[in-house]
């Protein structure tokens, strides 16, 4: 009996959300199939890869990452090198130094960093806050203000601070709003509902539904992404049709597989290789489960994942 292929057609699609300005833009989402199901329908916009840089410079980065940025001494120079990385679609600046439980840098200093990066590169920008909900509620509206005209993605508003960040990024300064929830389909949808009720255009929201490094418990991430795509396409649920961006590096570079030194774990092999492996494995799984964009750190990972995307698209 001959194989008769039946394409799985959906009458719904993921929103196309473009970030960046001028002729330097990238678009997330737009597909009406499950990830990489190009046999059902061609992909509108293939998945995108961003390069993570930090206001803390190269502090704490792995040897391989430091080697790539060798010679870059200012955040502007680092940003330029990041934008030039093979396979990079956008740059993601994380303002981790703002964390009150860490460096607790003042907001003005962080805004100066944001401005320096914005001047150094003209590629699409994603700016991530420090993860502390109170600090982000003050910091991210200022970031949105500083980046007026850049059509940047502001990561992220959460349930606790969506009013301040959503209103500033999505309404006052016309940026793209990143909506972050904790690996739960209902919580993701609830945040989208309250954000749109604030007046933010649903087509200007990108979700970060939460992530983890590949390993124990990671199946929740896969299941949540998969069900979100299923509801968005199968049930035409317009409160779940926002594209998904997943900051991978922040998860994978903190696990023991990436942090244990080779001296402690000789049988595990070189530390840098392990970090790349964790980053590549997690990003590949996120993309296959439904992420429309991933944020990575190591040049080798960025290259590998963008190659994978092109090969499967």
């Amino acid at each position, binding site marked *: 009996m001959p194989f008769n292929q039946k394409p799985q057609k959906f009458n719904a699609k993921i929103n196309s959300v473009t970030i960046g300005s001028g002729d330097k833009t990238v678009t997330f989402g737009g597909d009406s199939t499950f990830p990489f199901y190009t046999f059902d329908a061609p992909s509108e916009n293939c998945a995108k890869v961003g390069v993570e840089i930090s206001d803390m410079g190269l502090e704490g980065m792995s040897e391989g990452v430091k080697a790539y940025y060798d010679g870059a001494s200012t955040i502007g120079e680092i940003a330029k090198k990041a934008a030039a990385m093979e396979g990079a679609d956008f740059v993601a600046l994380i303002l981790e130094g703002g964390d009150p439980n860490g460096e607790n840098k003042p907001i003005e200093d962080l805004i100066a960093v944001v401005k320096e990066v914005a001047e150094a590169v003209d590629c699409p920008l994603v700016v991530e806050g420090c993860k502390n909900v109170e600090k982000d509620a003050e910091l991210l509206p200022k970031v949105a203000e500083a980046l007026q005209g850049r059509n940047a993605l502001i990561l992220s508003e959460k349930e606790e601070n969506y009013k301040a960040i959503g209103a500033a990024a999505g309404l006052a300064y016309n940026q793209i709003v990143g909506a972050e929830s904790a690996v739960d389909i*209902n919580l993701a949808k609830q945040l989208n*509902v309250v954000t749109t*009720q604030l007046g933010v255009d649903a087509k200007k929201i990108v979700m970060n539904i939460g992530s983890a490094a590949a390993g124990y418990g990671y199946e929740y991430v896969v299941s949540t992404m998969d069900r979100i795509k299923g509801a968005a396409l199968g049930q035409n649920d317009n409160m779940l049709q926002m594209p998904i961006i997943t900051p991978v590096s922040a998860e994978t570079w903190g696990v023991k597989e990436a942090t244990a030194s080779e001296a402690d774990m000789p049988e595990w092999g070189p530390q840098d290789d392990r970090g790349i492996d964790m980053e590549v494995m997690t990003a590949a799984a996120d993309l296959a489960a439904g992420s429309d964009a991933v944020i990575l750190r190591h040049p080798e990972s960025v290259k590998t994942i963008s190659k994978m995307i092109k090969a499967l698209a």
Partner: protein
Amino acid sequence: MFKVTFAFEDGSVVETYANEGDNLLEIAREANVAIDAPCSGNGACGKCRVQLKSGELDTKKTLHISDEEFQDGWRLACMSKIIADVKVLVPDIASAYKSRMKVADLSSKEEIAIFENAKREIQLAGIDLRNSLDVIEVKMAPPSLDDTMPDVERLSRALRKFMNLKRVRIPYTVLRKLPDVLRNSDFAVKCVVRTTPDDMFVYDIFENKEDVVIGGLAVDIGTTTVSAVLINMENGEILAKSSAGNGQIRFGADVINRIIEAVKPGGREKLQDAVIKETINPMIHEMCRSISFPEQQIYRMCVASNTTMNHLFAGINADPLRMEPYIPAFFKTNSLFASDIGVEINQDAHIIIAPNIGSYVGGDITAGTLVSMIWNRPEFSLFIDLGTNGELVFGNSDFMMSCACSAGPAFEGGDISCGMRATDGAIEACTIDKETMEPSYQVVGEPGTKPVGLCGSGIIDVISELFSAGIINPKGKFVREGERIRHDKYGMGSYVIAFESEAGSSKDVEITEVDIDNFIRAKGAIFSAIRTMLTSLDFDVSMIDDVYVAGGIGSGINMRNAVKIGMLPDIPLEKFHYIGNSSLTGAYLMLLSTPAEKKTYELAANMTYMELSTVPSYMDEFVGACFIPHTDSSLFPSVE
């Protein structure tokens, strides 16, 4: 030893003595001073506030008391140690749960109608309203020198002959009064008896001229509230009705905390005393006094309660109930007598306990199911009992399925900063103007009663109205500003329903984001349980023909508002029926009718119990339901 004085807002005081380092809340419990402590006194709930009037306390400061309040003397009783003579004020809100016991000689017409209706329906279902208790008249030949048979043998012989029985049992209580009664009445007497085909038990004996009423007692022991009716066993007439707070509340608001208290040394006796000696016995005495009825003439009792409550009532170790694999000591027992556990009615009275179905679906539900009559109809009905545990039964005359979900005490006002039971001073209904955001409300009690707090039905109304007016978002967070909306220093919003000047207590009556969050979780638990149970049967809410809602949530629920906040499914409002305290009505039917009692055992045996915690999709359903009205708004098409 230090002297500890508890002062109340009505001016009364209770004095007791304590050692240095004693915990104030413990001292209050020992002195029978009711201070609400739903968290069992570990500083988590912030409800046991007292105000220091004189003397000193060594108090650990917690988040629940602001700096200004601390300055004003407010302390948490559970966090306070005795270090000197001290006098504290126990504010009304803290002791409001221990409502004055309410006794009505004859209940209101509506309440009578509930019992009358239940009787009629059960008879229509072909169940006789008869029981094995009877008053029979016996006339014996007086003894003489030629007929020297003793009194007991004389009565036995007469009764055996009369009823053609093999055996007659006469207990000590009857033996003791027998010679006098026989001689005073010239050997023509009335006996209260229980007859089975070949055996008779004589409960009591009276002179022939006396008018004998066989009393029966039906009791619903709720985790929060106990209610009871005293009835005439011959015709089902309600002679008196009473309700009171469950005396066990001071050992914790929910069943788990009660079990934990009961496991402590001497705890089982303490918990049993709290419900029998401090709650049920006083209710019995009050009811009997109000109608001049002797306690000794209550010959049967029926108790409907959740599994934990009937275990603690019977003084049985309930600890296995709370630990995997959650096994109760009994589903059904027929070996309990009044004298066994000190219930002050006729000491030989048999105590019927409505059968349990599982560790978290108890006799209150089987009794309620009997009353709902869902077992007698081909149409599909849903029976919901809103209590500290929410219980559901779904089915028809062919099958029934039950499950329980932990809603928490929010429906009865627990876990809500201004929450209280549906007693005097409780706001039971509320509307809020969309423009001005001004509330108008109804308060339980005499006209003019000032509001003290919110009961379950009031909370449903307030949240629904806040949502409709756009004051809160679907997450329950405040999104409008106004005179009645406040934010504390941590940013937590609240809405003032009655300012201190309008309220009957020393505090504003308000609802906070934390309260709303607690309530959303309670309603989410109920709705997700409904969905999970129906989905497991491949049903959806449109297939429900009738919904019967029971529980002591207030005088009635505004069903429209309950649907609007996503607590009950969005089906036509005429399908909802509020049936009041179905546990008590069920206990009444089981007491009055032996066939109804048997039917309840049969229902319990035929009900399938579904353990929600083993259903993987329940958590997803729950999170989806913790939103107003629901994350999936297509489930609530009528809510715009």
